[in-house]
Structure formats: C-alpha cells, structure tokens
C-alpha cells in the first residue's frame, strides 16, 4: 500500500500530516510513503529528511496517480478532489455534518473517505484524537500570541522603578485548549480566571491553580463530555458572573465550542465596549463563528482600544510539534484501520464505523 | 486493711512497679506501626524471663521429688523455648530493616 502525504494548501497552516519519523515507522510496517514536495517545510522538515527516512518525495500529480491512501490535515479542496481516483482511500478532517456538499463531491469520485474529526472520544481512541492533540497546542499558543500582542507583561514584578501588577487573564471554555491555556498563563505568572458551562471543570481549573468563575447552570446539560447549546437564561447569568472579571481582563481567550454547531456568542459588542483599553481577545472559536460577536476569522479587529484576534492558527504555527502529534495520531489511526497494510473495514468497531464517512463512493454519514 | 498492710510492707515494690510501668509506657509510645510485630515478638522473648523462676524451682526442689523435678524440667524447657525462639524470631523479623545495597 502506498500512502500519499499531501502538502497543506492553506497558506497559514504550516503543518504536515506525517513527519519523517512516522514515515519511517509506516515503512517498517510495509507501507510505502509518497510525500508531496516541500510538504514539511513549514514544520521545518526538509525534503531530505523524508528521503532519508525512506520515503519518496514526489510531485503532486504523481502522488495522486500512485497513492492508494491519500492523507491530509485540512479538508480536501476542489483541486484535490478532482484528482482522486476510484478505489483510493482518503483521510482528512471532513467535518461532514457541516459540509454536506464536500461529502457529496468526494463521494462522487468513488473513493472511501475517513474523517479524523469524527474519531469518537473514547478512552482507547485517545491516541488518535487529533482534537485533543491540536487543541492542546492551540491553548499554549493562544497565550503566547496574546502575550506577544499585549503591551503589558504577565507576571507581578516589584522593582526599583515601581511595581508592575500582574496581568489578568480570563478564559472561556475549559476543554483541552482552555486547560492548557490556563496552565501556560499561570506559568507566566498571570492571574487566571476561567469559566465553563460544565461544572465538573471547576475542579480541573483549580487543579491548575486558577480560579473558576461559577455560573449557576441548573437546566444545562452536557453529552458525553461535550457541552450542549446553552439557554439564553444561562447566557445572561454567565454575563453577570463574568463581567466583573471581563472588564478587568488584559487578555481574554475564548475556546467554547459545541460540536457540530455554531459556537455560542459569549462576549457581545456591548461588553467589549466596557473592556480595558489595550485588552486583547484571542478567539479560538472564530472558525465556528466565534465566541466574540466582533471577531473575524484570521483577522485582527481593533475595536475601541480592544484587539480581537480571530484565529485557529494557534496550533498551525507551532507546526513542528503539531505535525509530530498529528502524525502520531494518524499512525495510530492507520494502524487501527489496517492489518498488515490492508484495510480491515471492521464496521463492528466503533472507531471505524464512526469515522468511515464514505465507503466506495457511498455516503454512510451525514 | 490487709491490703493496706500489704502495701506498707511492700512499699518499695510498689514504687518499683509504678516506675517500671512508667518506663514501659514511655519507651513504647510513638513507635512506628511497622515495628509493632517485631516489638511484640521482642517483648514476648522478654516475658520468657519466667525461665529464671523455673530454674529456681528445680534448684530448690528436693532431689528426690521426681514429680517436682519433672515439672521443673518441663517448665525450664518451655521457658527457654520462649526465650531462645523469641529472640531468634525477632532477629529474623528485623532483617527487613537492613538497608539494601544496590
């Protein structure tokens, strides 16, 4: 079986879905690896690193021509799909629930498609869970970006030239990204507060030494560890509880997502108006509509002295590590799907079943 | 009244008892739990001090009183069993407190 590693086509995404070290593992298992030219450059992997690991570095055309399995991080774009050949297996994030068109197009090419974002959050799938591995880095990087954008430093410092008060950081949504953001901001010495609709996160926040802002959440539910959409009443209570902190915050990081839905609006324009001059908001939910009303994906909006940065670019920019982890997830996933380089198509298995969106051109999930 | 008399006659003994109890308590309290068993075992060996009485019984027995001698013999055997066995077992238990060499 030949695995084709595509270069990401989104310019701001510097990752690559397989790193040289993992190609080596795959090759030792009997796969062949075809890597698109310069696929690893953004992650500081040279073409020579791949060839030294035993892969062939090939042109895009030759890759689509020869590969049995084609892999990528971001959803395939039109140009990719056009080159698919019947019978190929393609793997990437497909976001099938919100992208029916894309799914139809891929299906029409007669390929089988697995979606990495559909991997269920069960214990044995933890090592394939790209959401966790990438969100984690996003949490870290969001803090670094915030620290870089701010005109203040994080820690308290009592110096001969006066005392610098510590920055106050507020984090909305304490999933994987939120937790890592808390940990990183705490390390740098900021005063960190966080809030989440799921009350079980209180203990987790405190286990990282930060303060949890409790919002009475009677009536709200969660589902398999994920939050469901919050009621309007909850949103109002949340604002009341959090505003004091929000208006004092120097940096706000929002990570609140609801799987398969538009992300909830947690910070309205009216709230932004009352924030500190010079405050920064990093909205990691921007790609799903944003947790801040004013945020725009991949843009920095300046509103009345507040900088609002809409991004998911966080993990993409720590591309070396992000690619390493993604590659390991991908390896584990491929290992799970195959036996001696052949796909097993074991649809009894929850992971296979959940992720196999298209089988030989037939759409299984939508 | 008899008891009071007895007390009076044995005043020294009573002081000794009191002081010994104090020492016994003072010496044992606050020992770590892992030492409970070895300590119990060590104390057990010490209670074999009854052997001294057993020997005296034999020494004082009429050399022709075979019953007394036999009983005394038995008492000595049992007593020394308690003493020797007790100390040796304790010592073995305490092996585990030797610092292992790497």
């Amino acid at each position: 079986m030949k695995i084709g590693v595509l270069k990401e086509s989104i310019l701001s995404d510097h990752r690559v879905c397989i790193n040289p070290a993992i190609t080596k593992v795959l090759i030792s298992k009997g796969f062949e690896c075809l890597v698109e030219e310069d696929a690893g450059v953004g992650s500081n992997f040279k073409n020579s690193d791949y060839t030294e690991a035993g892969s062939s570095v090939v042109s895009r055309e030759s890759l689509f021509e020869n590969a049995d399995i084609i892999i990528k991080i971001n959803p395939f774009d039109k140009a990719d799909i056009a080159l698919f050949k019947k019978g190929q297996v393609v793997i990437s994030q497909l976001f099938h629930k919100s992208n029916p068109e894309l799914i139809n197009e891929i299906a029409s090419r007669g390929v089988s498609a697995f979606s990495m974002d559909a991997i269920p959050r069960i214990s044995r799938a933890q090592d394939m869970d790209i959401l966790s591995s990438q969100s984690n880095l996003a949490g870290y990087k969001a803090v670094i970006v915030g620290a870089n954008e701010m005109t203040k430093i994080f820690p308290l410092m009592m110096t001969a030239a006066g005392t610098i008060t510590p920055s106050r950081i507020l984090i909305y949504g304490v999933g994987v990204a939120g937790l890592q953001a808390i940990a990183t901001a705490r390390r740098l010495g900021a005063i960190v507060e966080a809030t989440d609709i799921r009350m079980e996160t209180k203990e987790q926040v405190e286990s990282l030494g930060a303060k949890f802002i409790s919002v009475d959440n009677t009536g709200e539910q969660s589902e398999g560890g994920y939050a469901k959409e919050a009621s309007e009443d909850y949103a109002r209570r949340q604002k009341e509880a959090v505003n004091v902190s929000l208006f004092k915050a120097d940096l706000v990081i929002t990570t609140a997502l609801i799987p398969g839905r538009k992300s909830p609006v947690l910070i309205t324009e009216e709230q932004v108006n009352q924030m500190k001059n010079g405050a920064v908001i990093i909205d990691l939910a921007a790609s799903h509509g944003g947790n801040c009303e004013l945020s725009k994906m991949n843009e920095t909006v300046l509103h009345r002295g507040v900088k609002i940065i809409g991004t998911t670019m966080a993990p993409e920019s720590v591309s070396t590590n992000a690619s390493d982890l993604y590659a390991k997830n991908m390896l584990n996933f491929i290992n799970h799907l195959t036996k001696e380089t052949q796909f097993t198509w074991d649809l009894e298995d929850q992971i296979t079943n959940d992720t196999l969106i298209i089988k030989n051109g037939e759409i299984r999930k939508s | 009244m008899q008891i009071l008399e007895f007390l009076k006659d044995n005043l020294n003994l009573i002081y000794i008892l009191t002081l010994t109890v104090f020492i016994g308590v003072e010496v044992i309290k606050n020992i770590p739990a892992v030492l409970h068993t070895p300590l119990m075992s060590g104390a057990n060996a010490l209670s074999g001090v009854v052997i001294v009485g057993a020997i005296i019984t034999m020494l004082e027995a009429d050399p022709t009183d075979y019953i007394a001698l036999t009983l005394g013999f038995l008492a000595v055997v049992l007593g020394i069993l308690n003493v020797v066995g007790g100390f040796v077992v304790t010592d073995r238990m305490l092996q585990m407190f030797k610092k292992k060499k790497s």
Partner: protein
Amino acid sequence: MMITLDIIYLIATITFIYGLKLLGHPETAKKGNLIASLGMGLAIIGTIFLHNLIIPTFVYSLIIAAIAVGSVIGWLMAVKVQMTKMPELVSLFNGFGGASATIIGLVEFGKNIGNASQTATTMAAIIIGSLTFSGSVVAWGKLNGRMKSLIRLPKYNLINNLVILGLIIFATYFVMSASNSQMLLYLLLIGALIYGVLFVIPIGGADMPVVISLLNSLTGIAAAITGVLYSNMVMIVGGILVGSAGLILTFAMCKAMNRSISNVVFGAFGSSNAAVGDGSQSEKGDIRSTTISDVAILMNYSQRVIIVPGYGLAVAQAQHAIHELEQLLESRGVQVKYAIHPVAGRMPGHMNVLLAESNVSYDKLAEMDDVNPEFKNTDVVFVVGANDVVNPAAHNDASSPIFGMPILEVADAKQIIVNKRSMNPGYAGIENELFYNPKTSMLFGDAKKCIQELINEVKNM
C-alpha cells in the same frame, strides 16, 4: 555470692529496659534485641551457677539438658519458619512462657499452704499463666489455619465474663479457706485453660496480632507474679515491663488498625474488616489499608521506588510535597522516578505542567513505554491520585470503557501503595481491580496531607 547475682539481675533488668527502648526505632531495633538477649543469657547463667544451695550434679545435668533441648528446638523452630508464619510462632512461644509460669505455680503451691498472700500469688500465676497458654495456642491454631477462624457461641461475651468472674470468686474462696486440695487446684487450672480458649475463639483472624500482644502482656504479668514468689527482682521488673509495654503496644496496634480500645476491652473484637470500602469486597477480595509509618519504612528501605502521579495529585496540589518526598528518598539512597501516563490528569501534559511547577527534574520523568518493563524490578510503586491509568480492566475487561487503553503495569512491582481519598472511581467511573491485588495496600487520605506526613515520618528514621 548472692550479691553478685543481684548485680547480675540489675544489669539484666537494665538491658531489658534499654533493649526495649532500642527496639522502638528501625535503625537500632536489631541491636536492642541483641542487648536484651544478652541480658537474659546473663540472668539465666547467673541463676544456675550463683546460689548458695547444695545441688546434686544430676539436678544440674537435668537443668542443663532442659536448657539445651529447649534452646535447640526453639532455635530450629525460629530459623525454619517462613517469614509469613512468624506471628503465629510468636503466639506459640508466648503460650510456652505462660505454661512455664503455670507449672511453677503448681510446684510452688504445695510449699506455701497456709500463707495466704503466697497462696494468692501462686494462684494468680496459675490462672494468668494457663489462660495465656490456652489462649495463645488457640491464636496460633487460628493463624495457621488449623482452626476455623471465627467460632462464636451465642452470647459469648456474657458467658466469657461469667466464666472469668467465677474463676476469681473460686480462687478467692480457695485462698481464704487455706485449703490444700490438689483437686480444687486442678479444677482452677482447667477453668483458666477453658477461659483462655473461650476468650480467643470468637475473635477474627485479622485481629489476632492484637490478641497476641495482649496475651503477651499477660505472660509478662504472670512472670512478674512468679517473681514476687521468689522476691526475684529481674522477674518482677522484667515482667512488669513486658506487661506495661505490651499493653501500650496493644493499644497502639488497635489504633493503627482503626479499632477503638473499648472494642478490644469489651470483647467486641471480631467485627472483622476495617470499615473501609464498599459492599463489593467479598467478590473482589479484601482491601488492605495501610498507615503512613508503614509506607514510610517501606519506602525508606527500598532500593527502587516509582511514583505514578494522577489527576488526584493535581487536585490536592501536592506537587511540591511529592517533589520533597522524592528528594528526601533520593538522599537516603533510594532511586526514585515518576512514571507518566500519557493521559494522566485532565489535559495532555497535565502531569508535566504540575511536576515542572515544583521543579522536578525532567530526567526523572519516564514515559509509559519506557517504564513498563521496569516495574518488575521495582520495590515499591507509589500511585498518588491515579486510578484509570493503572486499571487492569483496560486489559482484562472488554466491556469496560477503557478497554484497549494502554496502562502502567504497576502490578508487576513487588509492592504497590495507592494513595487516594476513598474507593471512589476516577474519570472513567469504573472500579479498579488493582486495589484488591494482594500486593496492593491502600493509603487513604488527601494526597498532600499524606505525602507531607510521609515526609515527616521518613525524616524521623
């Protein structure tokens, strides 16, 4: 030269006190045992040779023979016994001591008829000695499984108390009447033997150590009483010393087992296991809970310790404490490392963040795949606030939500200590068989508190 003997007895007494004192610290315990045994040897030899009676050689030979026989047998028994069977052997030896006191009492009885206080003393020696004997033998039988662990007559408490009351009244009457009836004497003996049996049979196997300690204390008292008979100081002081020390030890053992003292005194032993754990014990096996000082000694005398941190360590904010413990143990020559499970905690790298905060060296953190083969050479694994990541259900139980997740194979280690607050499950919400593993002991309590206490305990060693 009786004065020499008195001096010898004084020296022996001092060795007893000092030896017992040394026995109370792990570092000096062996020395204490040795010193006490030397004192004992001195007392025995002195007793045999330093007196002003004229003794026929054959009596001497008899005594020496008795001592030789007893020593050899005692030594052999003690050396041959397996480590795990030691407590029952101690019980047996203790019984022998009691029997010895009884016999002395029987022999002396005849000599002292008419002297009320002497008779009373003899009687006390016989009663205490024989009940200690029978009780110890029963305890021995229970521990080595020759006897069913728990036999309870209806209303056994009441019966027992009546029997001992009867014995005392009987003995008092005996003394008062100044009788010299051998028959009555043997009746008393038999009564005491029966009481000893009755006292021990209703008590469960787990409580045996406490019982043995109590009986041991009684043997000491019997020895002291016999000593009064001969106005023999080393017996009196030695016996009382064992008596008081044994009693305190009994209380200490109760406390360590979380049993109240009244439980013991009023015979309400036997309510078998400590009140920890939920109802499912019977299926899964027993939970062994352990104490701070046990864990401290265990760790201090280990060569290799691996710490498995989990989410609970973060909740307890015990990162600084665990680092201190690690450094302390290292300074004692123990090799310590941390085994980091990839999903320990609640976010990727949670344990790394946590331990970095307290400056744990990166070199001490081992990844799961590297550390798993090392467990089998590990003396102690200390699992702190971790649960799912060491749950063997991930291998064994296909129906469990964590099935298929790789885990830290701590069960390969020689001993496992698990520190958590309760038997509550972790993130996955499932029970953990590891806790029922015979090699596992549970240290219940908040991680920070427990570790800090551990540090203190280790420091004092």
